[in-house]
């Protein structure tokens, strides 16, 4: 019989919540010490619900739960203090970050370091003066690192030479960057050395670098998403011309 996973006041965020029956919700949460957990939260919706905390994504919460198996029962929840009210223009990026975790992390697999990155990225999204693409690129790199698919940004995977800013590389998903002297036959994205070094240093001030970094991250993430596209990306941009 699996152990009873009783947990008390675990710090975390809601990634996604779905209505369940009349007054309950099914929550997917990301906690600092427990990783991704699925909870059923009873009696939290409707006019008679009495929650002191806002049960929503991007709100720091303390969750208590009990139960065996995949779906636990939330026994209590309270606000962890602090407010992460994402501006309207940033919410979709938050959804995207949440979807990546839902798609790439297994349940009950703690990733405390990724949690720190997640929290820092949310914090950065709050500030509308910071370009959100740069925040997302950094978060994607950290996520890949944490999952064990980290980028190789030090040297040419074939020659072992350090990366040169003015060389052109073909990024092999398993091996890493391979110098590509002539611009022919590239099975994988062609990325400049300058961009690879900038990704390493989290320096996204140059729009050209941001563009290339996006192509590379999109390619690398797709390797782990089993060809099922991310909904937050697709649906939101599907009809920008409405």
């Amino acid at each position, binding site marked *: 019989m699996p152990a009873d996973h009783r947990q008390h006041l675990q710090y975390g965020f809601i990634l*996604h919540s*779905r209505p369940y029956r*009349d007054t309950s919700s099914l929550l997917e949460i990301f906690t600092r010490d427990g990783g991704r957990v699925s909870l059923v939260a009873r009696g939290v919706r409707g006019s008679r619900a009495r929650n*002191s*905390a*806002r049960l*929503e*994504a*991007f*709100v720091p919460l303390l969750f208590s739960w009990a139960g065996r198996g995949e779906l636990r029962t939330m026994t209590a929840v309270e*606000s962890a*203090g*602090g*407010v992460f*009210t*994402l*501006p*309207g*223009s940033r*919410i*979709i990026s*938050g*959804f995207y970050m*949440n*979807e990546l975790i*839902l798609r790439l992390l297994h349940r009950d697999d703690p990733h405390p370091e990724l949690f720190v990155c997640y929290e820092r990225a949310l914090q950065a999204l709050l500030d509308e003066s910071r370009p959100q693409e740069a925040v997302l690129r950094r978060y994607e790199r950290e996520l890949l690192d944490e999952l064990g698919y980290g980028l190789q940004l030090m040297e040419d995977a074939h020659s072992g030479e350090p990366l040169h800013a003015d060389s052109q590389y073909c990024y092999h998903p398993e091996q890493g960057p391979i110098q590509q002297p002539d611009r022919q036959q590239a099975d994988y994205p062609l990325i400049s050395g300058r961009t690879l070094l900038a990704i390493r240093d989290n320096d996204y001030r140059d729009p050209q670098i941001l563009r290339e970094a996006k192509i590379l991250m999109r390619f690398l993430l797709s390797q782990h998403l089993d060809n099922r596209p991310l*909904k*937050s990306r*697709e*649906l*939101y941009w*599907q*009809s920008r011309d*409405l």
Partner: protein
Amino acid sequence: MSFSPLINQLIEALRCLPGVGPKSAQRMAFYLLDREREGGRHLANTLLEAIEKVGHCEQCRNLSETPVCQLCASDSRDRSLLCIVETPADVHAIAQATEYKGLFFVLMGHLSPLDGIGPLDIGLDKLGERLDSGEISEVILATNATVEGEATAHYIAEMAARREGINVSRIAQGVPMGGELEYVNSSTLSRAFLERHRL
């Protein structure tokens, strides 16, 4: 204990109503059969008729049995104001509580990409056409104060901003009337503070 098949079927059918579990469904079934046969017949006929005839208004997407609902067809409303809400219940709530004299647009939901609900699912193509008509001078965003509601409001605000001559406003958020500060959640209080107004 099991009842005759038709009674069981009725109990099962009643359970599609929100908040009705097996016990209440059983009570309702017996009440209708035992004491309120006429009322039951009336309920059944009305229900059938409503389900056959009620569709969505061509203009505001609200539930309506005519192609254009009464509110949209009325000539006493201010046609330059458009209030955007998530559900028909919201239209009713605003109509009851406020002096609002403009028109409505009902999304029948909100953007929720992780659930696969995108702009087209909540009729934003139709809303775009409406905004293009040149009739509207102000869009009032009255979606819920949830993250999905905010994301939806932002998306529509951007749509309106791409068209000239349309002002966009968002309903105010803050401490509820009769609310004591101590019991208001911290996000609401911080929003109320940020958006305080001069007296």
